[in-house]
């Protein structure tokens, strides 16, 4: 279980998180939705200890990662898989080496079988074994994302954090990724936290949806509760309306 309590983070004068409280239960898929710049990705990075908050706590199975030292943090990070927004594949390594990277470091006992695991995980994300020998620069955007997902699940983490997993993918591949997230939850009882703008994907894969606005969680509920909400803030977001309480600072073209 992940418990986030009173999380605050500023970058200079930009107060991104203003006291986030959120519980993510073991085995559930939690969606975090919100506008661009609302602090979704920053929140995700705090969960795995990539960022230190100014105030507040993040408990992973009752262990406060904010107060953990480097070794304790490393032990906790082992349990997380992270799919980065831009894939973040290592350019200097092949696809196979990228996928095997976490296996060698985090699950050395699987190291002798790494080649089989790579082929297996590539198949899981719909890629052929030949892709393993390519460099990331030779892949399309969608393929990079799938390889990144294969890398994040290769060492079988307990928690998987997805930063916009379907952004930039075609509708069919988005559906494949959605199915994969659902499959991982069902088969392995993986706990997932998914940051996304994609409402179709959110309804399909989640157990609960939380909305972040101006650095705070303003709504939380099941997909049906969110879909049928009367809250004007949430309603505007899920229907994608330009008119409503959320004002985007954009200049209309005259």
């Amino acid at each position, binding site marked *: 279980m992940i418990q986030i309590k009173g999380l605050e983070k500023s970058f200079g004068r930009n107060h991104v998180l203003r006291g986030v409280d959120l519980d993510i239960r073991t085995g559930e898929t939690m969606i975090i939705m919100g506008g661009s710049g609302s602090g979704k990705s920053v929140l995700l*990075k705090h969960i*795995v*200890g*990539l960022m230190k908050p100014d105030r507040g706590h993040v408990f992973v199975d009752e262990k406060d990662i904010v107060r953990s030292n480097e070794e304790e943090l*490393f032990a906790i*990070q*082992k349990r*997380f*898989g*992270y799919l*980065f*927004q*831009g894939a*973040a*594949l*290592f*350019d200097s390594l092949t696809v196979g080496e990228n996928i095997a*990277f*976490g296996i060698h*470091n*985090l699950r050395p006992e699987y190291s002798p079988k790494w080649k089989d695991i790579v082929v297996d995980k590539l198949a899981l994300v719909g890629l052929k074994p030949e892709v393993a020998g390519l460099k990331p620069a030779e892949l399309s955007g969608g393929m990079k994302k799938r390889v990144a997902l294969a*890398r*994040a699940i290769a060492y079988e983490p307990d928690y998987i954090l997805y930063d916009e997993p379907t952004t930039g993918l075609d509708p069919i591949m988005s559906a494949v990724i959605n199915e994969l997230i659902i499959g991982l939850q069902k088969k392995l009882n993986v706990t997932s936290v998914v940051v996304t703008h994609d409402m179709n994907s959110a309804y399909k894969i989640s157990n609960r949806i939380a909305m972040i606005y101006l650095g705070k969680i303003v709504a939380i509920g099941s997909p049906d509760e969110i879909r049928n909400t009367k809250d004007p803030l949430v309603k505007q977001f899920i229907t994608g309306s330009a008119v409503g309480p959320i004002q985007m600072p954009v200049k209309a073209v005259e």
Partner: protein
Amino acid sequence: MIWVESLGQMVLNLAETLGRVITLWKKTFSFIAKGNVTPQVSFEQMSKIGVASFPVVGLTSLFTGMVLAVQSGYSFIKVFNEPLFIGSVVGLSLVKELGPVLTSVVIAGRVGAAITAELGTMSVTEQLDALYTLGTSPIRYLAVPRFIALLVMTPILAALADLIGIIGGFIVATIQLGIPSGVYWEEVQTWVDLNDVCHGLIKSFFFGLIIVTTSCYKGFGTSGGAEGVGRATTEAVVISMVLILVGDYFLSVVLVAMGIGG
């Protein structure tokens, strides 16, 4: 009182930078001390940094030795009517100053820039964060091999630069200035001793430390996309070069005071 405020801010920034550099050193050298290094990656970096820099370092030092011989030769002809002490001028200038400094400036431009650009690109594309989540410290995986490579290869390249520069001087001295080869080598041997060579090599070790610290620090701290990578790379090269030249003076003073190459 705006200047007081900006002065205070400057002092704060400097203290923060210094603190971060010391943390980078502490972490890097503790990995090295514990033997927590990947020899294969370190050798790759040595080859990439050292061996690949050799042609340009060699060419630079060859022509530096040649131009030193030309300049000192014709100046001394004007004063003494004959080219005296060419071997000593070329040898001492190269071994104590120009070999280490020019080699380091070339490495800062060629290698320091590449390190900052590579680490900076990794930083803005979240590859450094990915390393963390995959159980590896970016300092262990990226900084440690580069520190080892530069700390080992800069003095080696500087030593080779000394040798090639002296050979450059020899070519000009014997062919252009008509000095007998025995006289040139005798001057070099008489005036340049092991202490002078150590003086230059110790300095080049510290120049290597300046380059790798600046380029890793700037690379790890890069933000702001492609523009940020460009800015960080330029800053890393400029700061390295300025620190090398400023550091050269202070290192020379300290080494001479310690009796090394006085």
